[in-house]
């Protein structure tokens, strides 16, 4: 197991390095000059500068070094969690991230809770309930959830729960109450995906020979569902969940805009449109780190749920 773990961690670090390097190459190959961008973000124009001023500005942002030097310089600093200054926002990337990450993390964590409760709940009921119309209805529900656009769901929830019933705030990042509506909005589509997959996988499991054996032994439907079917059916769902965690961070931008939450999603959108290279790079790295960590956790859970996985890893 330790060897398996070490291998996976090394792999994770490699993925992070690759993500950083690819972003660096892409952003520095784009046909635009960071200084022009920096000035145009301030509404000014590079052609208004004298060559001397231009040189000073480039030196100020470390843009006068050869690209390879810049790369190692930035990589070294990134290893120390120093991502330099934002080109458009006048503060360090680090302070931007620490300012905006907490609200996004809180939002994502609650949204994942929504995904687990809704996704598991619907799939469980859809395969457990025996009354046919309810089964059909529950099985169709995920398709509706997936096809509802998030901004529409968000605006609808605000209209009903904030403006009409005035139960929950429509905007802001203060307290748990401001998390409820955005988390539901963010969690709805992924929970529908999870429910769809899990329903399918539970249905398949119910047709397995060992379920027939369990039934023959006289176990109740409840015991079979909880003890045998769910455990076996949850493996593919777990993989999907790993992907969905990354998906919620990426999708935070829509929800953050609708609910006026100034988080990482909005920052990412601004940074991409403004080609704020250091900020984009830091965010890509954070997203990649999140993906890597969650998938590592999923893989480890996998080997707990299904010992064959760890054994296969060792054999290879």
């Amino acid at each position, binding site marked *: 197991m330790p060897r398996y773990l070490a291998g996976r961690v090394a792999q994770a670090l490699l993925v992070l390095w690759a993500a950083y390097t690819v972003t660096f190459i892409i952003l520095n190959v784009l046909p*635009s*000059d960071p200084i*022009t*961008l920096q*000035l*145009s*973000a*301030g*509404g*000014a*124009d*590079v*052609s*208004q*500068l004298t060559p001397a*001023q231009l040189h000073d500005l480039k030196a100020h942002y470390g843009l006068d070094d050869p690209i390879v030097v810049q790369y190692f310089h930035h990589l070294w600093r990134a290893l120390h969690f120093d991502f330099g*200054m934002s080109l*458009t*926002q*006048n*503060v360090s990337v680090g302070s931007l991230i620490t*300012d905006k990450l907490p609200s996004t993390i809180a939002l994502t964590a609650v949204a994942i809770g929504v995904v687990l409760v809704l996704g598991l709940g619907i799939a469980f009921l859809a395969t457990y309930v025996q009354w046919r119309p309810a089964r059909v209805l529950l099985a169709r529900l995920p398709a509706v959830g997936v096809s509802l656009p998030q901004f529409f769901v968000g*605006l609808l929830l*605000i*209209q009903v729960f*904030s*403006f*009409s*019933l*005035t139960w929950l*705030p*429509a*905007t*802001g990042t203060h307290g748990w109450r401001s998390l409820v509506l955005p988390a539901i909005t963010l969690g709805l589509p992924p929970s529908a995906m999870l429910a769809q997959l899990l329903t399918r996988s539970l249905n398949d499991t119910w047709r397995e020979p060992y379920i027939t054996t369990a039934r023959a032994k006289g176990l109740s439907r409840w015991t079979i569902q909880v003890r045998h079917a769910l455990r076996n059916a949850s493996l593919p769902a777990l993989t999907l969940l790993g992907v969905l965690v990354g998906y919620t961070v990426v999708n935070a931008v829509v929800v953050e*805009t*609708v*609910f*006026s939450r*100034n988080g990482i999603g*909005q920052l990412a959108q*601004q940074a*991409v*449109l*403004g*080609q704020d290279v250091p900020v984009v790079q830091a965010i890509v790295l954070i997203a990649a780190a999140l993906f890597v960590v969650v998938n590592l956790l999923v893989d480890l859970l996998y080997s707990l749920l299904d010992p064959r996985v760890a054994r296969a890893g060792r054999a290879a």
Partner: protein
Amino acid sequence: MSTSHRHRTRRRLAATAVSVLAAVSLAACGSGGSSGSSGTSAAGGTQDGKPVPGGRLKIAFWSDFQSCIDPNQVYWIESRSIDRNVADSLTDQDPKTGKIVPWLATSWTVSPDATSYTFNLRKDVTFSDGTKFDATAVKTAYDGLHDLGAKSTLGLTYLAGYKSTTVVDPYTVKVDFATPNAAFLQASSTTTTAILSPATYKETPEARCAGKIIGSGEFTLDSYSAGKSVKLTKRAGYAWPSSLIANKGAAYLDGIDVSYIAEDNVRVGSLTNGTIDIAWPRQPITSADQQVIKASGATIQTRALPGIIGLLIPNVTAGRPLADLQVRKALYKALDLTSYAKTVYWDGYPVAKSSVTSTTPYAVDQSAKLVYDPAGAGKLLDAAGWALGSDGYRHKDGKKLTLSYLTNAAGPGDQLVQDQLKKVGIDYQIKVVTAAQLTPTGNAGDWDLSGGYLTRADPSVLGSSLDQAVSKQYTAKYSQDPATAAKISALFAKGLSTADPTQRAAAYKDLQDALIDNGVAFPLYDRLQTAGVSGKVHGFAWTSESFLRANDIWLSK
């Protein structure tokens, strides 16, 4: 959920449905026009009772794109609105007359050639860090603003030709220019030239942007988190407002809380349900939203923003369709500005009449030159060799008459122009690029029309977009051939070379004529600043540049 609770909820939903229906039917009966007055209007004004001190004003803007709060550096309208209440300037401008009135300066003299300004200063003013306001502070501030260079987009033109500031005596200061700058007196009333405490200029420009600024205004900046929130606290002992302000002492409000809500209907909903007191968007509030706001007991405040009107600016490079003056003349006739105002905004929305908006001093009505005449446009295009083809578009030498419009945010107005131009056989292509790519693409010159507007209560503001002698912007570079540019730049220089209002008026009339006669600028839409203001807000006022003025605001309990 208990039964009684469920009933209550249902009743509440029913009540909401009724109120929504009421709003809709009101919208149907209403004229759809804008309400509220212009100028230094008050939402009810101070007349409707004695001002009550206390309370915090909650205001929501739409965005904080520039992520900067330093008055010397920002061009972003929303930040300037906040700054107006944190930092004072030497002079103030009357929104009704455009006249410059005393503020931190009690009087001033201007040399006839507009190269030298001498200000006499108030002696009782302090910055919020306790530092005394005097001639040295003014010198530090103006030198500091000038040192910002290109970092201050507006400062660059406001201080055009700046030579030096001299301390004559502790309360007299002289500002000298190498070239005439008649617009400087107006500039001295703006947030851009606001005087900050000398300590502020020891901070880096980035730190100032991020909130390290100290002013002498009726509020102090408590905290600024870019794009998220701004908190202002009332300055105790404030006693030096400009003569335009009724309240001569400290602000009535305890403070102001600013938030940013990007979605229009969330912002409007937050106003109607009382979460915020003022909803302040960039685009005018739609007539449907206005009805909803009015139905909730709030008012709509409206004022035309002074400065460059919403313009289309041509690229007249040889070989491109708009190089031909006759095609540009046809374009004026092909644009239906009246229906643009009515369709994109509402019935009764002001129609564009010149290259500057109606509230800009020295604005001249040019509507006689901007009459919609599609038949006339067709005739001009025929004469210019662009013949109507079977596909509904005009062609010449096998080339289609295509005009590509460069923008970073296409709106319904752009589609309306596309539709209007199609009627005379012009193929209007909307080319959308990201904000970061706008300037590089503009500089590359592969476009036929681009847009532009800028807020300043002086017509010289047009120079920042159109005067090749001072502006390096692509709009200036591509919109005039050398002969036209010489003519236009001479008129800009004439407007700046005299302090005499009559001569300035004549120069800017000639300039506004020349911009249209030579096809340099195409006025498209007038610019209104609207704000939804809750019924409990009293004493709401605009500055001459249509920013928020919070000195007289008080909240009823």
